[in-house]
Structure formats: structure tokens, C-alpha cells
């Protein structure tokens, strides 16, 4: 295990992520000092917003339950040793299709889940923001693609996304900041298959460097992206927005677990948090919750008080509901060529054909699929548990690892009220806080989409020359739980992430998503965070905060 058990960011300094053993100066605030914004979480939502608000001149403290790493010295090239990157506190997962949590979708540490994400940086299909009005399913977002477009661009610039000159989907855009990476063999399997059946494919836009940037070198194609980047080529929030935030005056508090939002007279007054063995209080004029789709609703529910007996911002009972993942069935096969999928970022090629072509679909929504790059232990678990293989049959099958290639979808999942996060009052975590219970079941539409996608992936792999095809079952990402909307009757916040019920309580993470779309959510979360930051600054200038 990598270990950084005690807080590092304190006493006026924070770890310098670019130098082993290095430090950078950091502004500090006392608990008594009422800061403008206390932010819970430092991932794609919270870390990005902390930077935007600090650069706009607000005083900001961001709280992170996990450690503050220096990737260059803390991260090993090893799947098992990197287990400390994930949120592994107790949680219960149930329903007809329980979602695998932990390493599958939950980060813990400054930078959040972006520290172990696969860096896929895709914009949404423009019509998804008006899914109900334009496509006839699910619900509309309270903002349009037009409103978010400049913030997509801002996020892509901030991450120096490497991408092709012409990406074939979403709205036509300027060139990506950095050139595309060479596609690895696993991606070339997807390319060959798509070309043979006559659909478009593209190298993926990725938030990993294809040229030097400041202290960081270009990606060396080591392939451990899902286990933390030890070279800083990955443009996680930890090495992008966080250093910017600190430079602009934000304080980041690592190993600081927030247990409750404190309330008085219908307004949030600050946070109760646990750090260095004791509970402490931070005063704040505004509180932003950015703990991702499980911890955000959990904190709102665990902050129930006499004025808000069902939890904060939960007057209509929406908090925790409409939780979504992306469905993720995969198809795998063997090729004559050596693939060696452990090399380079795990996903390098994509087709979004079925996100944009709605003809001949027996379902609502869309899916993309990407080439895959499992490492040894993860691959072995996949083969063993999905095919039920063990014994010498498993050991022999595993020797074909270097010839295997696969595809996996990011599949849209319907927002449904019964899929939700609750808290379990009689089961407590190590801080004495009620643990979350997640309930999830696919809808009939979700199942039709998955069936359709398996057929598509099989035809692409077959055309690429893969043999002995088999399917597996997985999910990725979490979204929803505190949806934004146009009315308190059907949502938790407005388009700015401001809760309807409590004017100085905000949400800024993937839990805001009213629908899930068919691509990875991180770029959209970061674009939303950039927009919310600008909106808050504009409202403050007009005296509307």
C-alpha cells in the first residue's frame, strides 16, 4: 500500500506535486475565520471549482478525506500496491444489479477520481442537454450545450487535452491543445473492425500529455493510468487545478473528513470535520458539496437537523435519488497478432457511432465503445469471474493475455427515482457516521441498450479478425443523486448548482447530472465546475450571493 497517513498540507505549505520531497507555500485559514467558500471534495468538481473561486478572489478552503500525494515519489508501478487510491470505507451495494464501488468508480485523495481515471476527455452530444424535448426520453438539463461549450473549451485548455485534428462527433470544434497520441494495437483492433463494417472511429481525446508541459514530461505509455500516473503526464486535478488553486490563495486540507454541514436559521454556517484525531469546525459564508454521487447525498442526509429533519435540500425527497452509472458490457476475443494491451493508456480509440445515429435502435439513449487495456491482475479477475474459470484451465488461458483484445461500452442509463443512495442509521464508519447504501437496477430500456451494444461490439471484433469471442459485464462512473433542474419540484439545485432550499449551499460534481449520456463524465463535470465558478463570481459582482 502507498501510505500517507498524516496530513501533509498544513502550517503554510502543501506538497509540490512536481518535485520529490518538495513543498509550495499555501495560504492557511483558522477554523474561526469565516471563509467565503468551504468546499467538500477536491476532485473533478471540487478541485476545479476551488481553483476558479480562488482565482476570482474568494477565500477558499477545500476539504479532502484522503491524502495529498506527490505522484513522482509515492506511486509504484503495481496494481496491488496502488489500492490506496480508492475509496474503500464501508458501503452496502444492492438492488437487482448492484454496482461495484471502490476501485471501479471512487477515488480518495486530493484530485479525487481523476487520479486514477483513464483520461478520456469527451464532450457531450449537444442534443443530450435536451433529451426530453429533442430526443423524446428522460429529461432536459437546465442548461444548453451552447451555454456549456465555452467551458468545455476552458477545461480542455486547462488539461492540455491531446486529440485528433478532426474529431468526428459532437459539434465541430477548434483543434485540441495538444496533438493526438499514436494509437496502440488494442486501439487498432477497434479501428480495423470499424473500417471493415463501414462506421467511423477516432483516436480518443485524452488528458495525458503528448508534448512537454512545464515540469511534466509527455506520456511514456507505461499503461498504469488506472493505478495512478507516476510521471505526471496525466493531467489529473491533482497536478492541474490544485496547484493553480493553491497559487491563487486556496487552502487544501488533506485527511479532513467532513461529517456534517452546520446550519443556523435556514443557512449553512460551516462544516464539522475530522482531522488529526479530533472533530473541528470551520466557519464559512457558503458551503459547496463536491463529494461525488455517493458521498454528496450521504453528507446532505447525514446533516439532518431539526429544521431539515430529512436531510439538507431534501424537502421534496430527491436527495440521493436518480442515481446512475454507465452500463459497461464488454466483448473480448483473441487475435493472431500480439496486442500486449498493457502498453499505453488503456483506452485509445473510440466509436461514438451509436451515440449519434439513432436509426435502427430498439432503445432510447446511446453508447460509445472504447478499446481496452487491462493489466495482469485485473485481467485475471475479469477472466476468472466472468467465465467462471479456475484451476489449470485459468493459468493456461492467462498465457494468451498478449493476444487478447476487447471493447467496452460507456452506455447511457436512465435516471430512475428508485435507484438511489440512502444512509444506514445503525451502521457506522470509522468516524461514527452512518454508512451509505446504494440500490441500483437496470430498466428494460437499459437492458435493450446493452443487448444492442453487445451485437455491435461483436460485429466490430469479428470484422477485426478476433476469434473465440466472449462477453463480460461491468459498469463505470456514477452520476445523479442531486440533480439540477428548473424547478424545486423536480430537482435539488438550479442550473448553477445552488440548492433550491438553502441559498448558501451549493453542489458541484457528477451528482448534478439529470441524465448520464453515453460518454465519460469527467470533462462535463469540469466544464460545469468552470461555469459555476464564473456564475458565482458574476452573481457576487451583482450582489446576488
Amino acid at each position: 500500500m502507498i501510505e500517507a497517513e498524516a496530513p501533509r498540507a498544513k502550517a503554510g505549505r502543501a506538497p509540490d506535486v512536481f518535485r520529490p520531497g518538495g513543498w509550495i507555500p499555501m495560504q492557511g485559514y483558522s477554523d474561526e475565520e469565516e471563509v467565503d467558500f468551504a468546499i467538500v471534495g477536491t476532485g473533478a468538481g471540487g478541485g476545479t471549482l476551488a481553483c476558479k473561486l480562488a482565482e476570482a478572489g474568494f477565500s477558499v478552503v477545500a476539504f479532502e478525506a484522503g491524502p495529498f500525494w506527490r505522484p513522482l515519489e509515492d506511486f509504484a508501478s503495481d496494481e496491488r500496491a496502488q489500492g490506496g487510491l480508492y475509496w474503500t470505507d464501508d458501503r452496502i451495494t444492492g438492488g437487482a444489479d448492484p454496482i461495484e464501488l471502490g476501485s471501479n468508480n471512487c477515488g480518495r485523495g486530493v484530485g479525487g477520481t481523476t487520479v486514477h481515471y483513464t483520461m478520456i476527455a469527451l464532450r457531450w452530444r449537444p442534443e443530450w442537454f435536451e433529451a426530453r424535448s429533442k430526443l423524446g426520453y428522460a429529461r432536459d438539463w437546465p442548461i444548453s450545450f451552447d451555454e456549456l461549450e465555452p467551458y468545455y473549451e476552458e477545461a480542455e485548455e486547462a488539461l492540455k487535452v491531446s486529440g485528433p485534428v478532426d474529431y468526428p462527433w459532437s459539434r465541430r470544434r477548434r483543434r485540441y491543445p495538444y496533438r493526438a497520441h499514436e494509437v496502440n494495437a488494442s486501439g487498432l483492433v477497434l479501428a480495423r473492425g470499424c473500417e471493415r463494417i463501414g462506421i467511423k472511429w477516432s483516436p480518443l481525446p485524452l488528458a495525458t500529455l503528448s508534448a512537454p508541459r512545464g515540469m511534466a514530461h509527455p506520456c511514456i505509455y507505461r499503461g498504469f493510468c488506472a493505478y495512478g500516473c507516476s510521471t505526471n503526464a496525466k493531467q489529473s486535478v491533482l497536478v492541474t487545478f490544485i496547484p493553480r488553486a493553491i497559487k491563487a490563495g486556496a487552502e487544501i486540507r488533506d485527511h479532513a473528513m467532513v461529517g456534517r454541514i452546520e446550519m443556523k436559521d435556514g443557512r449553512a454556517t460551516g462544516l464539522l470535520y475530522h482531522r488529526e484525531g479530533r472533530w473541528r469546525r470551520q466557519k464559512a459564508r457558503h458551503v459547496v458539496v463536491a463529494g461525488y454521487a455517493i458521498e454528496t447525498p450521504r453528507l446532505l442526509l447525514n446533516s439532518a437537523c431539526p429544521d431539515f429533519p430529512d436531510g439538507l435540500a431534501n424537502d421534496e425527497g430527491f436527495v440521493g435519488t436518480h442515481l446512475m452509472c454507465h452500463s459497461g458490457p464488454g466483448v473480448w476475443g483473441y487475435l493472431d497478432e500480439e496486442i500486449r494491451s498493457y502498453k499505453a493508456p488503456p483506452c485509445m480509440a473510440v466509436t461514438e457511432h451509436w451515440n449519434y445515429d439513432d436509426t435502427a435502435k430498439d432503445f432510447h439513449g446511446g453508447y460509445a465503445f472504447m478499446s481496452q487495456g487491462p493489466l495482469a491482475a485485473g485481467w485475471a479477475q475479469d477472466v476468472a469471474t466472468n467465465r467462471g474459470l479456475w484451476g489449470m484451465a485459468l493459468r493456461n488461458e492467462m498465457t494468451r493475455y498478449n493476444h487478447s483484445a476487447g471493447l467496452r461500452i460507456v452506455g447511457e442509463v436512465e435516471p430512475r427515482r428508485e435507484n438511489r443512495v440512502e444512509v444506514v442509521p445503525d451502521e457506522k464508519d470509522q468516524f461514527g457516521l452512518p454508512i451509505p447504501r446504494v440500490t441500483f437496477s437496470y430498466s428494460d430500456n437499459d437492458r435493450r441498450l446493452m443487448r444492442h451494444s453487445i451485437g455491435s461490439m461483436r460485429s466490430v471484433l469479428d470484422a477485426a479478425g478476433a476469434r473465440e469471442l466472449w462477453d463480460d459485464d461491468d459498469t463505470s462512473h456514477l452520476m445523479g443523486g442531486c440533480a439540477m433542474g428548473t424547478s424545486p419540484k423536480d430537482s435539488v439545485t438550479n442550473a448553477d448548482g445552488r440548492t433550491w432550499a438553502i441559498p448558501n449551499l451549493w453542489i458541484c460534481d457528477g451528482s448534478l447530472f439529470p441524465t448520464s449520456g453515453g460518454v465519460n463524465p469527467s470533462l462535463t463535470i469540469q466544464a460545469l465546475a468552470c461555469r459555476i465558478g464564473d456564475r458565482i463570481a458574476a452573481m457576487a459582482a451583482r450582489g446576488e450571493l
Partner: protein
Amino acid sequence: MSDDFRTPYADYDVLAKWDTPSWNDRTREVVRRRLEEVPQRRFLTEEEWRLLEAVTARLIPQPDRQAPVPIVPWIDEMLFENRGPGFRYADMPPLRDAWRQGLKGIAGEARERHGTDFEDLPPDRQDEILADVQHDRTDRRWWGDLPAGGFFLHLLLHETVAIYYSHPAAWSEIGYGGPASPRGYVRLGFDARDPWEAEERHD
């Protein structure tokens, strides 16, 4: 089930890269600990440990090795530290209870069917029992509320396989590149092998 093992990477040893730029100090430290500091028994009873040794020896048979890759010590460590994956299925008891109950279940099946301990059965009888556990063909008396198939797939097999394929000996036998920092890879295309990668050889 045949116990013959064949690999096209018989000549490849990932540890030969230990002192090359493919390995950095941090990685050498965690892999050295894995190889040299195998933990002692702290959670399982002696009987549970012996049974789990016999079970994992069927899940990952290693007749080709003088010194098998250790698996049970790491399961014991995980249970001692009560370190779960970050979730438990709603139909499963907490981590430690689930493992204890699962081992009880396997032991009960063996004694009921053959009147002897699982570890004293011949390998094909052991495999029969494990296959029945995998497919939920078990007697409720030995399992209580624990779903046998769920225990087998999500806990027992999942963890055993992760531990084995985290060992350099397993990396070598499948031709996996292993640690790769600060030196990663250069040749990414079809059949494109860097000189520091495993070479496939078929006789």
C-alpha cells in the same frame, strides 16, 4: 481437469528488469516486500488456514513450482486488517463473517459427502465440491445466509486470482511487462515488441 501447464514465455523473467530503468525505487520497495515479507497467520485459525491452503491450491494449482506463490498469507492479512474493497453486497454479511462462513461451508460439504476433511480428499473430489459451490449446488445447512456462488466468485476466486497475478512469477508466465516507470514503452502497434518485453516462443 488436466494439471499440465504450458507457457510460450518459459524463458522470460520479469525480475531480470529489477535493476533496469523499467523499475523505480518505489516499485522495487513494494515488490521486495511482497517477495520477502510474507505475513504470518494472524486472523484465521490453524484449521481454517489449512483448509484455505487446500482450496487455493485447486483454484491456482502450482505443481510446476518447488515453492508455490503464497496466497493464503495475504488473504489472512486482508482479514486481519479487515480491509475490504469499498463495498459489500447487500445479500452478504460483513467481510470477515463472510469468509469464515464460506470456509465453514466448504468444510461442511466435504464432511457431509465424503466423511472426511476437504484437505484430505483427492484433487478431483475437491474440484467437484468447488464446482458445486461455484454453481450454488450446496446444502443450506453449512452456509446459513451466505450465497455460496457469490462467496466463491466475488470473494474467494476474486481475491485468490488477484494475489496470484500480483506476483512476479505469474507476470513472467503470461508475458506481462510488469513495472514500467520511469521507462515505459515505445513500440505500440501490432506485433511490436520493445527489446525489454517478453518474447513469445512456441515449440
